[in-house]
Structure formats: structure tokens, C-alpha cells
């Protein structure tokens, strides 16, 4: 029983990181942009948040947790938005290839994050020595009224933020006018253009806001998952790619991403909790989220059920013809 609780908790925390990433990327992909820069944006968001709170905590003797929290949040949002903006500008306005641009963003994000992370480590006196205890503590602040509900008692509030974001995103996409317009942009930009929707504006907004949400995943990773420090172990990158996988697994539906993220969490940590596994077979277990995603991808393309397909113009640039 202990084991299951522990696994659940690990899965929820793990799942939250990729849930942020997936919800943001769903928004982006609904506009037709395939952003392979998700890991890069999570890197940028994570390091920006860490750097912001690190600077703050170093500068005062008694850092106030709430202030640290807000500073970190602002830094993360700014950095992620910037990442999304770079991608948007290159692919929408300058019509660069989406895959190549996204991968470049990942390289760039990884470089920036590890560079500044390393620099901060040095400043703090060594690898793993950074500790933004106050801010991290703030992020791990639990919801007081759930303090006595078993496994939920130790979950930071960001877990709930992610859940709420997912529900809000689902509502936005399916129940609002703007959401409808956005969906048409991702399916058939020519038709959307013909009825007067500003395709460019929607693509920019969806990609940038999507990036901001994805960046929150990086922030959560830094503050809660690894508890306010930095390690150059590409941990964020793997989670970033899992977030991309989750978007596919969830068939571009935010509510599906919720249980999908926790499922991935369970699959990822399962090896730890199954007794008697050799270390090598543990590695095979870690394959599960990806294999499951591939299966979903194949099944969806065979069954061709329209609701499960990727947005029709995903990955394709849209250029309006000259009249």
C-alpha cells in the first residue's frame, strides 16, 4: 500500500511537469505549428525562473517566499514567451521550416539553460549547490485544506494549477468563439482566411501563449521536482520530449492529457516499484510511455477516426496567394 501511494505521488509530480508542457503544446499545435522546441522552452522557462529567484535570494538576507515566487514566475513567463516569439517569427513571418526551427530552439534553450545553470552553480560554490530554498519552498507550498488527505497532502499547489489550466484550455478550445476560430486555423487555414479570421495573429498568439504555459513546466521541474537547484543532466529535455509524446497520446485533447500525464508518470516510475527487476530490465520499462505513444499514433492513423487526428495542417506553413 505504501508502495502504491509512493508511486502515485511520484507519478503525480512527474505528470505535472509534462502536463504543463503538453497543454501548452496542444494550444500551439491546434494552430498548425509543430513546435519541436518544447524541451528548449522548458529549459528556458526553468532556468529563467531559477535565475530570477536565485538573484533575488542572493541579494537579500531574508528573502520573502511570495516575492521569490512571483519573481520566478515572471522570469519564466518572459523567457518562455521569448522562446515562442522566436519560433513564431521564424516560421510564420520568415517562413522557415518548422522542424528545423524547433530543433534549433531546443539546442539554443539547452545551451542557454546549461550555460547559466553552470554559471550559477559556480557562483553558488559548486554543482548542486544552488539552493533557492525560500522560493522553492513557496512553490512546494501545499494546499492547506488538503493537508490531511493522504498522498495529496504533499503535493505543491502547482499540481492543481496544471489541472486547472488543462480544464481551462479544454473549455477555451471547445466552447469559445476564439477557440473555434483557432481550431479552424489549424485544420484549414485557407477556409479560415476566407471567412475573415486573421490567421497570422492566431498562429502567433497560440504559439507564444502555448510556449508560456510549456515554460511553466520547466519552472515546476526546477522548483518542485528537483527542489530548487540545477543539474546539467538533461532531465528537463527528456521530460520535454515526453510532453510532445503526450500531446499525441492525448490526441490533442487537454482533458485526455491529464490522465495521460499521470499514466506516463506511473509507467516511468513503475520499474522502481516492481521488485526483483534487474537494472537492465528497468530500462526497458522506461520505454513504455514512448511505445504506448507509438501504438496510439499507429492506431489513430489506421482507424482514421476524425476526432483523433492531428490538426490537418499541422506542420504546414500557410501562405496566402497573391490576388
Amino acid at each position, binding site marked *: 500500500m505504501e508502495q502504491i501511494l509512493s508511486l502515485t505521488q511520484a507519478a503525480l509530480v512527474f505528470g505535472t511537469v509534462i502536463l504543463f508542457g503538453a497543454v501548452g503544446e496542444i494550444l500551439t499545435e491546434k494552430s498548425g505549428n509543430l513546435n519541436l522546441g518544447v524541451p528548449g522552452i522548458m529549459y528556458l522557462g526553468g532556468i529563467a525562473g531559477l535565475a530570477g529567484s536565485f538573484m533575488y535570494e542572493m541579494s537579500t538576507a531574508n528573502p520573502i517566499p511570495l516575492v521569490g515566487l512571483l519573481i520566478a514566475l515572471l522570469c519564466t513567463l518572459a523567457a518562455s514567451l521569448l522562446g515562442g516569439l522566436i519560433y513564431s517569427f521564424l516560421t510564420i513571418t520568415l517562413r522557415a521550416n518548422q522542424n528545423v526551427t524547433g530543433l534549433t530552439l531546443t539546442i539554443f534553450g539547452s545551451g542557454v539553460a546549461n550555460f547559466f545553470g553552470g554559471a550559477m552553480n559556480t557562483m553558488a560554490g559548486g554543482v548542486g549547490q544552488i539552493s533557492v530554498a525560500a522560493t522553492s519552498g513557496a512553490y512546494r507550498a501545499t494546499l492547506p485544506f488538503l493537508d490531511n488527505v493522504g498522498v495529496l497532502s504533499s503535493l505543491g499547489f502547482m499540481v492543481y494549477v496544471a489541472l486547472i489550466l488543462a480544464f481551462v484550455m479544454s473549455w477555451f478550445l471547445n466552447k469559445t468563439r476564439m477557440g473555434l476560430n483557432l481550431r479552424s486555423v489549424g485544420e484549414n487555414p485557407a477556409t479560415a482566411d476566407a*471567412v475573415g479570421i486573421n490567421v497570422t495573429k492566431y498562429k502567433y498568439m497560440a504559439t507564444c501563449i502555448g510556449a508560456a504555459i510549456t515554460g511553466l513546466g520547466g519552472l515546476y521541474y526546477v522548483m518542485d521536482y528537483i527542489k530548487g537547484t540545477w543539474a546539467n543532466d538533461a532531465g528537463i529535455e527528456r521530460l520535454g520530449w515526453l510532453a510532445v509524446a503526450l500531446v499525441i497520446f492525448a490526441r490533442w485533447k487537454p482533458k485526455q492529457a491529464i490522465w495521460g500525464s499521470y499514466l506516463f508518470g506511473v509507467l516511468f516510475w513503475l520499474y522502481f516499484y516492481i521488485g526483483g527487476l534487474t537494472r537492465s530490465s528497468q530500462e526497458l520499462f522506461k520505454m513504455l510511455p514512448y511505445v504506448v505513444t507509438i501504438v496510439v499514433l499507429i492506431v489513430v492513423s489506421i482507424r482514421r477516426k476524425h476526432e483523433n487526428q492531428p490538426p490537418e495542417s499541422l506542420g504546414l506553413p500557410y501562405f496566402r496567394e497573391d490576388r
Partner: protein
Amino acid sequence: MQRDKATVSMRNITKTFGSVLANEHVNLDIYKGEILALLGENGSGKTTLMNILSGIYFPDTGHIRVNGQEVSIRSPKDVYRLGIGMVHQHFKLVNVLTAAENIILGMPGKGKLDLKAVGEQILKICNLYGFDINPEQKVYDMSVSQKQTVEIVKVLYRGADILILDEPTAVLTPQETEKLFCVLRNLRKDGKAIVIITHKLHEVEEISDRVAVLRRGVNVGELATKDTNAAEMTNMMVGHAVSLNIARPEPKDPQPRLVVDHLTVKDADGVVRLADVSFTANSGEVLGIAGISGCGQKELLESIAGLEPLEQGSIRYIRPEDGKEFDLAGMNPREIFDLGVKLSFVPEDRLGMGLVGNMDLTNNMMLRSFRNGKSVFTDRKSPRNLAHRVVSELEVNTPGLTIPVRKLSGGNVQKVLVGREISSSPTVLMTAYAVRGLDINSSYTIYHLINKQKEKGAAVIFVGEDLDVLLELCDRILVLCDGRISGIVPGVGADKNEIGLMMTSHGGDKSHDSNS
């Protein structure tokens, strides 16, 4: 008849595309509470004129008044405000969305969607005019006729008083057409102005109040429908026969080369495009195929070439050397090629199918011949020589052999394509709209090439839209109408009006003595 002032008044509209004069000083009036049929052959300019009214093109000269006000229509979004709505032949719908979602797409309004209210509003419109759609149905689940209904309701929902329908019955069954006509009558009763672009005379007679005929970009006349008849309308549409002086060598010893039997083809949506078509193409002969755009010619050629699957029927090829027969039905181009059947096809879509636009002349020449030879490497010498020959013999105007073919002008592109297809000395040569968009000289070059192939004994199938050309070039003319054979007449002495009638209704005008 008491005439109100025109709702829409188009004056002196001229529009050119490059060297093509699509509309020439056209005047047109559209009235409320009336159904106007816009009649004309392909290339007559009717669709261009309506595209101008719906904001897709901007005219070179002329003005447009709507409800008495002079307007400048710059884009499709402007026309909604003016109360104009056009339903195109190719629908602009998002497949994964429902009817209601498509109908309100892009409309301003409250942030939160109230699809129930939208649905109710849609049903109100439906009840008013007799439409039948389910607002919550997904577009991908709809038949073609239902999708068209969504498009019509879409423009009505946005407040259109002037509706333009481009060939609306092209995709409908007779029953669906009847339903549509009912709806149109209701709309007319409600005071809407309706324009139908069409070529089907019997429909013009059935549904329209007035008919305006365009021919080669000019408005040749408007009549009240009840004051005219099919023969007169056809005459206005096709005009007098024009003598073109195209040579027509006598076929030498024509033998059956391709025997098509009970061919039936359905398109991707399941609509029957060709029904029970049977004919024989003879060697040394040019068989013309006449018919309005969409009557099934494309499907006919593509199913013979192996590019389109067929529902039923056989396509028997008779080999010239020994008379052996092969059934080509259901084979793909590779299989036909491997059989040794030299079948060449000049498709309608020159740069999208017949050629690779981004490749140069040599590489395009190689499309048919690249498999030759046992080597793993491609032989570029022969295609290059062929390219040289084609360029010099057909006088292709090109700066060189290495520029991408999409940079060539229309006529030159076609010369390259035809040059390649005839270079293999085909036994069957099929061409679709071989001279569409070509200048006079290039056209004559193409006729000459076709005649040469005919003299060499090829069975030529020539799909064309210019009746004058068909009458002079072809030895026999097969007329298709709505996917069926309306008649097969000898080319010599054929009557243009008769063919025109056969194109628009089955068997032509029954009062005439038909020749087939």
C-alpha cells in the same frame, strides 16, 4: 412586367488574366425576387464575372452598384456586408467541425459560444426555406449535397440577400436537384436575388426567370426564360461555326484499337461520374470527346490510363502487331507500361501531373523513359537529345534546357509535354484540353502533331472544349452528358448546334433527326 430597380448592377466590367480576356465590357443586372441563370460554355467568363462580384478578383475597368450605392469590392470579406453570398463549386468547409460551427466560423460575437442558440437560428432558416440539415452533424459525415446545403445556409445566416450559386447541380442527383430547386423557389418568394451559373439547359428552363448568356467573355444577350427555347439558347451559347482550316487527313484503314465496354466510374465521394460508357477508338483516327466541364471526360481518360479505379467495365486493348487483346481495366500505369502497351496521356493538369514543375526539360523528358536500360544509372543523353529535338521541331521558346519547366509560358509547357508523349510513338494517344490557354500558333502546332500521330496509325482520343476545333479536327465526335454517352457523330458534316444540344441534354433535341 413590372421591374423594380436592380439590386445589383454591373457595368462595363472588363478583366484580363495575362493575355486572356475573360470579361469584355460586360453589363449585368440582378433583381430581387428573381432567379437569373448565367449560361455559357467553358471559358465564357461566367465564373470570372461572379468571382468579381464576390470579391475574389478585382476588375480592370467598370463599376458595381449594390442597392443603388457604388461599391468597391476588394476581398471576399467585403461582400458579407453587402449582403452578397457565393457558394462555390469547391466547398470551403472545415471537416472536423459541425455544420453549426462552420456556419458561424469567423463571425464576430460573444466570447462564449452558444451553439444551441446558433442551432436554433439555423433550424429557423431551414424551416423557412425547406432545407434539411442537422446543425450538430460533422461535415466529414455529410454527403456532397448536405455540404452544399451547409454552404448555402452559411451565406443566409450571414444575412445574404443576393445568392450566387456556381454550378450547384453538378454534384447532385436528380432528386437532390429537385429539393434544391424547391428551396430556391422559396428563397425567391422571400425576395432574395439568386444567380445560378450553369450550362444545363433543362435546368435553366425549369428554374430560372431570366437567362443571360455569355460567350467568349461577352454578354450576348438576356431573355426572359419563358420567351426562349433550348435551340435559341444553344445558338447564343455556341455561336456560329467558325472555320479554322485545320487539316483532316482521311483515316487509312482504321481498325479497332481500344474497345471500352460498360465503363462505370465513381469519384471519391461515391458520386457516379461515368455511367455505362461503351465505345471503340480506331487506329489512324481522331475520336473527339465533347462535353461540358465535369461531364466525365476527366474520369474517362484517367480510368483508361490507369490513374482512376473503375466500378465496372472493361477496356480492351488490341495489339496492332498480332491482334492480341488485353484488358487494361484496373491496371495501374506501370502495369500497362510493362505489358508493352504504348499508351500516352497528355493530362489536363500539365504542371501538376504531366510534368514536374521544378525539374528542367531533360529531367521531364526522362519521366517516361528513365527505366530504360539495364544500368542502375539513368541515361540522360537520350532524354537530352529528345529535349533538343522537341525544342527545335516544336519551336519551344526557352532560354535553355536547364531551366525549370514551370518558368515556361503555357504554350511552351504544353509543347514540351505533348512532345514527350508522342516521342514514344504511341499506339493510343489521349489528350485532355490540349490547346487550352494556348496561342494560335502553338495550337496549330499541336493539331499538326496530332495529325501526324494519326497518320502513323495511333488511335487518338481528343478531349476538347472548343466545338469549332472538334468539328474540324476529329473524324468522329463522342458527346458526353452527365457521365453518359449522349451520341456519337461523324466529324465531317456535323452540326455545331446539334452537338451543343447533345452536350446539354441527353440525345440532343429530340425534334431533330440525330445521326447516331
